[in-house]
């Protein structure tokens, strides 16, 4: 049993302007991962501006004070690197992994768009990336069966004005209404060094990284009074189950059962993580054994349960199954609910618990097996919990979860009276 899930060194510093810098040296491969977490996500978006944090992420690749449009991509790929960025309700992250000799280039590029995006932002760029994002929405959410499930679940789980009420991709109407001034303000408001964590993992020393960070980021001014997102930590239970039925162009009935649980990072969420693995990961899981194999209600490849790792409010647990031919949505939904309910009444056995912990251990070490996986993890813990070293505690915390804790958590947050059920039904064929 490992004492820590992070057996590599971690060193941190904070520049005068508030930028936190985290370094984890590992000379195994001649590569270095650079990762920035900005503490801004779709939870900060007011009504009428849904999708703006994510659209803004696109604009960060379109040039800055000393970098021409699309040059960022060209310079990183032209150095042999991989890069991307993602936005979720909690935060926005930007990352590249390059051969180690290009570390300084990566830091220069990141500093230039942190400190110098606004002067380079043009209407043309905004219009272009707005179209790209609308196509992203079509491709990922609108043009695939069940693609809008996440967009439907969030407003069922979280009430209006809750920071997780709307999905990060936003609405077409809001995206169409986005104007340039709003994005200039968005950058000035949130893209400040004291609202970010810079993490570097791999073939570089802490002293070298700290000096380069100071050289490139040191003169970017801090911003006072960065506005916080609405507080979503308390979501009153309604005591009313919520159901939604969607009839559409889908190949088979599918049911999603969802609950608000605990915030990522809490002991309760560690319990939930193990619970979700017991419930829905792999052929030995309860869902597979009961619904795919046992009663044969569900298609074996499409049963699952997972928590969505969000830290600023009770995070969702999503449980899903898709009907085998001839099985009705009602029967499947009843079966799914029954298996979830049994987490309270049928104790998790030692075998089930060991299986879940073994799968989670492998998943953890897989995330740790690359420098980019480690950099994103350290950035998360520094941003959300103030200390990257807390990453090392996650795996031991999972391994300490007991069967009793799972039953207690299930009783507390997975009650049928506080359940969201979303059902997709195929259109009747004429």
């Amino acid at each position, binding site marked *: 049993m490992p004492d820590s899930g992070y057996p590599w060194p971690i060193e941190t510093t904070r520049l005068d302007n508030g930028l936190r810098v985290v370094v984890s040296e590992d000379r*195994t*491969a*001649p*590569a270095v991962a650079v990762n920035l977490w900005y503490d801004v996500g779709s939870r900060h978006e007011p009504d009428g501006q849904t999708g703006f944090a994510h659209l803004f992420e696109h604009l960060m690749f379109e040039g800055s*004070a000393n970098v021409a449009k*699309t040059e960022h*991509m*060209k310079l990183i*790929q032209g*150095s*042999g*690197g*991989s890069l991307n960025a993602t936005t979720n309700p909690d935060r926005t992250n930007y990352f590249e992994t*390059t*051969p*180690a*000799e*290009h*570390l300084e*280039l990566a830091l*220069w590029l990141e*500093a*230039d768009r942190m400190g*110098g995006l606004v002067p380079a932002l043009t209407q043309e760029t905004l219009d*272009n990336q707005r179209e*790209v994002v*609308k*196509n992203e929405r*079509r*491709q990922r959410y609108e*043009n*695939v*069966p069940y693609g809008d499930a996440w967009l439907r679940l969030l407003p069922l789980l979280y009430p209006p004005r809750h920071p997780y009420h709307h999905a990060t991709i936003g609405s077409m109407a809001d995206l169409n209404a986005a104007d340039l001034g709003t994005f200039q303000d968005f950058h000035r408001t949130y893209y400040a060094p004291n609202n970010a964590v810079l993490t570097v993992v791999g*073939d570089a020393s802490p002293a070298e990284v700290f000096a380069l960070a100071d050289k*490139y980021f040191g*003169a*970017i001014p801090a911003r006072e009074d960065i506005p916080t997102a609405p507080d979503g930590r308390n979501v009153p239970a309604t005591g009313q189950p919520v159901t939604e039925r969607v009839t559409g*162009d889908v*190949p088979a009935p599918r049911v999603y059962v969802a609950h608000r649980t605990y915030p990522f990072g809490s002991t309760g969420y560690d319990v939930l993580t193990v619970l979700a693995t017991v419930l829905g990961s*792999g*052929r*030995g899981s309860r869902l*597979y*054994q009961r619904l795919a194999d046992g009663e*044969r209600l569900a298609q074996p*490849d*499409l049963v699952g349960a997972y928590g969505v790792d969000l830290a600023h409010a009770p995070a969702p647990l999503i449980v899903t199954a*898709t009907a085998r031919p001839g099985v009705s949505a009602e029967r499947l939904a009843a079966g799914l609910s029954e298996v979830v309910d049994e987490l309270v009444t049928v104790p998790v056995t030692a*075998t089930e618990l*060991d*299986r879940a912990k*073994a*799968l989670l*251990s*492998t998943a953890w*070490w*897989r995330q740790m*097996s*690359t*420098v980019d996986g480690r950099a994103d993890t350290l950035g998360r813990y520094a941003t959300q919990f103030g200390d990257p070293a807390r990453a090392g505690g996650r795996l031991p915390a999972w391994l300490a979860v007991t069967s009793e804790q799972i039953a207690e958590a299930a009783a507390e947050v997975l009650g049928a009276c506080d359940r969201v059920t979303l059902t997709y039904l195929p259109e009747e064929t004429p």
Partner: protein
Amino acid sequence: MTLITDRPGAGTARPYRFPQVVRRTVAGGQVVAAHLPGQNLAVALLLLDAGASCEPVGKEGLGGVLAKALEEGTAHRDATAYALAVEGLGTELVTGLDWDSFQVSVQVPVDRLSAAVELLAEAVRTPKLDPEDVRRVRDDEATALRMDWANPGPRADAALRADLFGADNRWGRPMYGDPDSVTGLDVEDVTVFHSQWFIRPGTLIVAGDLERIDLDALGAAAFAGAGGGPVDRGGPIEVPLHNGRRIILVDRPGSVQSTLRLGHPSPHRAHPDHVPMTLAGTVLGGAFTSRLNHLIREVRGYTYGIRGDFASSRRFGRFAVSSGVQTAVTAPALVEAVGEITRTQVGGVTEDELAVARSWRAGQLSVELQSPRSIASALTTLVVHDLPDDYHARLRESLLAADVAQVSEAAATHLHPEALTLVVEGDAAVIRDELTAAGLAEVIDAG
């Protein structure tokens, strides 16, 4: 201005090293391993000469059904006990199938590797294959394919493949089969396929900290009870180009995007132009700043992304471009994509573009080859294509050495814009007239 205006140059490059490769013969099979000192995770992958090419025409999807059936119980335990044993080690059997090979692998903390390989071998060599289970797995696989084929893409891919390679040939049909071909399989097809292809020793690929791994014991477990001689893999197949372009329209009523698949046949993997072709494909459609992505996404905003590449297996290859574009711009997106392919074929690449392509492809060998899973995949390439231990280091050198003349020559030789098949999966009622009016080619409805 508070920012540093001058772009920094590169520091001193660290030497590139692919992990040390170990090859040995154990118990009638081959073990090929890479040493990853200090790595907590390890991967073992059994590579069999049982790719989709081994499936008879009309039996597409056989390998996929067998892959699932392997986990429905073995000579030693039933399906549930098997799942608990494997997952209790923290792993799952991951199966993969391509034209050249069948792969089954486990990924575990290194101290559990030998137990995981024993279970892997138990499923591959001694599956129960109870007729009732096999029929159920087949039905589930057919349903799973039906679900997948409800998404945009698989029908377009199948239409392109059939048009390029001919549906009379196994390689002109979908790699994983289609819902109908899988529905038509019977129990004997599966058991015979197993006895023909899954009893041969194959190659065990291992990536991990070899100081903590006993390769001989792993090989003995993987090859126990295996037998049979080498497989005739067949030579490269000559695939003729079409005499003209054609548009194949796959109807998807109500679709808010059109799925594009453009392509033509291209050389097999061992062709001497492999490296310059790869780089030409990177300039045209591989990098983010590629010609296609720059024009269709970054300038026009027609799509979330478009990419193109040359892909090849041991016996054949294809050049293909894929994207999803907003329905209203289907015709202009096609015209501009064909325009970029033509421009690249006629005019070649520039040094500026090639510099990005060669550094990116070479650098990816350092950046992407970190995890045991990716190293195992790189070892698989060595085995499938009979390449030497120092292949990745040599590949890096040849990528960095490729010049504009070579890559432009490869583009001129291996791109065929006049012979492209353009498959469009979208709302036919909305886009048909525009496609015809675009004048690229005759529009044919998919069968």
